[in-house]
C-alpha cells in the first residue's frame, strides 16, 4: 500500500471510532473479557505448576525401620540407601527424634502423649530423591526395592498427592484451551457484528471507493486496523484487570492465608504468557475483522448503484 494511502486509512479509522464509539467500546470490552478469562486460567495454571514444583522439591520417601535394629545394622542400611543412584540424601530419624518431632507438632496438646512409651513411634529414614528422578515410575520402583529390604518394615511416599495435583494442573490447562476456544469463537461473532455495523455505517463511502477504483486492500485496511486496535486495547484491559486481581490476592494473603498457604508466594504471568495474551488480542481483532470482511464483501456488492 502506498504511503499516501496510510493517512487516508488512519483518518477513516478515526472517523469510525468517533461515529461508532460505543460499538467499538463494547467489542473491546468483550475481547477484554475473553482474554481475562483465558489469562485467569493461565494464572491459575502458573501457580499450580509453581506449587507442584515446590512439592516436587520436597518429595521424600519415608522408610520405617523394623523395631530392634542395632546401630551397625542402621548404618549399613543407610549406606545401602545412599548408594542407590536415585537418592540425593538420606536422614535417619531415631525413635527419640520421632518422639520429639511429634511433640513439637502437637504443641500445646503434647500432654496427650503422657503415659505412652517413648519408642511407640517407629524409627525411620527420610530419603530425598534427585530432581531428575522425580518421576512416578522411578519412585514406585525405588519404593518397591526399599520394601524388599529385610530391615525396612514399610515405605510411604506422597506420590498419590503429586499425581492428583498433576491431574488438576492438566485439567486447568485443558479448561484454559477449551473455555478460551469457546470464548474466542463467541468474540469472533461480536467482532463480526461490529464489522458489519461499521461496514454499513460506511456503506456509501465504501461503495464510492469501489466505484472509483480503490483496491480491495485499501477498503479492508481501516476495518482490520480497527480490529487490531480493539484487540490490543482488550488485551491491555485484561492484563490490567489480572494484575489488579493478583495484587488484591497478594495484599489479602494474610487474611485468606488458609486457602493460599500452600502457594506460599503467588506468581504473576511470565513474560511469554503476557506476550501470548497480547498476540491473541491482536489476532482476535485483526483476523476476526478480515474474516468477517471477506465474508461480507463477497456477498455485498455496490448493488445500490442505480445503473
Amino acid at each position, binding site marked *: 500500500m502506498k504511503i499516501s494511502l496510510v493517512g487516508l486509512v488512519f483518518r477513516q479509522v478515526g472517523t469510525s471510532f468517533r461515529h461508532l464509539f460505543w460499538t467499538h467500546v463494547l467489542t473491546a470490552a468483550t475481547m477484554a473479557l475473553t482474554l481475562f478469562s483465558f489469562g485467569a486460567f493461565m494464572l491459575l495454571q502458573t501457580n499450580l505448576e509453581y506449587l507442584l514444583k515446590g512439592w516436587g522439591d520436597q518429595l521424600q520417601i519415608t522408610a520405617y525401620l523394623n523395631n530392634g535394629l542395632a546401630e551397625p545394622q542402621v548404618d549399613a542400611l543407610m549406606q545401602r540407601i545412599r548408594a542407590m543412584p536415585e537418592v540425593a540424601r538420606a536422614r535417619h530419624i531415631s525413635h527419640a527424634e520421632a518422639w520429639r518431632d511429634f511433640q513439637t507438632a502437637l504443641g500445646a496438646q503434647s500432654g496427650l502423649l503422657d503415659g505412652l512409651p517413648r519408642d511407640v513411634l517407629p524409627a525411620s529414614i527420610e530419603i530425598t530423591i534427585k530432581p531428575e528422578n522425580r518421576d512416578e515410575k522411578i519412585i514406585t520402583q525405588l519404593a518397591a526395592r526399599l520394601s524388599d529390604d529385610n530391615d525396612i518394615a514399610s515405605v510411604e511416599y506422597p506420590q498419590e498427592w503429586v499425581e492428583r495435583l498433576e491431574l488438576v494442573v492438566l485439567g486447568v490447562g485443558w479448561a484454559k484451551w477449551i473455555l478460551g476456544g469457546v470464548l474466542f469463537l463467541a468474540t469472533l461473532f461480536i467482532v463480526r457484528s461490529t464489522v458489519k455495523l461499521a461496514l454499513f455505517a460506511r456503506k456509501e463511502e465504501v461503495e464510492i471507493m469501489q466505484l*472509483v477504483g480503490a483496491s480491495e486492500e485499501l477498503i479492508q485496511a481501516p476495518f482490520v486496523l480497527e480490529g487490531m486496535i480493539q484487540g490490543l486495547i482488550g488485551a491491555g484491559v485484561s492484563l490490567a484487570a489480572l494484575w489488579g486481581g493478583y495484587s488484591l490476592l497478594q495484599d489479602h494473603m494474610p487474611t485468606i492465608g488458609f486457602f493460599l498457604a500452600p502457594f506460599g508466594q503467588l506468581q504473576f504471568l511470565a513474560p511469554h504468557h503476557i506476550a501470548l495474551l497480547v498476540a491473541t488480542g491482536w489476532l482476535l481483532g485483526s483476523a476476526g475483522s478480515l474474516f468477517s470482511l471477506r465474508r461480507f464483501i463477497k456477498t455485498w456488492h455496490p448493488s445500490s448503484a442505480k445503473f
Partner: protein
Amino acid sequence: MIQVLHLSKIYGPNRRALTDINLAIVKGELVFISGPSGAGKSTLLKLLFREEEPSEGQILIDGHNITRLSSRGVAQLRRKIGLIFQEFRLLPHLTALDNVALAAQVIGVSKRESRNRAYQLLRELGLKERCDAKPLTLSGGEQQRVAIARALVNEPTLLLADEPTGNIDKETAGEIMGLLVKIRDRGATILIATHDRQIIRRYGTRLILLDHGVLVDDLAQASGR
C-alpha cells in the same frame, strides 16, 4: 475504444436483461443509450464498469477483455472510467472539495495533489465559491457538477453517465449537457443512458436504442449543437 461482442446478461431462468448485443464505440464519441424502463440500459452500463459479469459474450476496452478480471483488475479498470449517477451519490459528511479529492486519494494520489486537482476542476465547473459547502447545501445542478468533477478527477478516457439530468431542471440539464459535450471535445468517450428525447435530439450524435434487452436500433444523428 469499446467493442461489445454477442453480449448477454441473464439474471434468472426467466429474466434476460440483455440478449446478443453487438456494438463498437470509437474514441471521442458521445453516445446516448435509450429505451423504455427495463430495456437494459442500466445493465449495459453495469457490465461496462464491471459491476456485473456478463452471462455470455465479451467486452473489449482498448483491446482488453474486461469480462475476465480479478478484483485488482476491476479496480484498475474503474480508474480509467468516470461514473456519473442520476442521484449524484456524494458523501454528505464531506465538503464538495473533499468529495472530489477522495476519488483521487483512494488511487494513491497525495492529499495535497488530490485537493489541488479537485479545486482546479471545481473552479472550471463554476463552483470555486462552493468548495467548502456540504452536498446537502448545494442545488441539484451544483451537486451534479461536483459529481462530474469527481468523475473527471482521475482524467478518465471513458465517462459513463446514468440519467445525469434526471434529477435537475431543464435549464440546469442544458448546462450539464454543455459540460459533457466540452469534455467529449477534449477527447473523452462518453456514454449516456437517458430517456430524455429532448436532450438526445439536441446533443445526440449517435443513439443506441434498446428494448427488452435487445438492440433495436443504432442511429447516427446530426448533432443539434
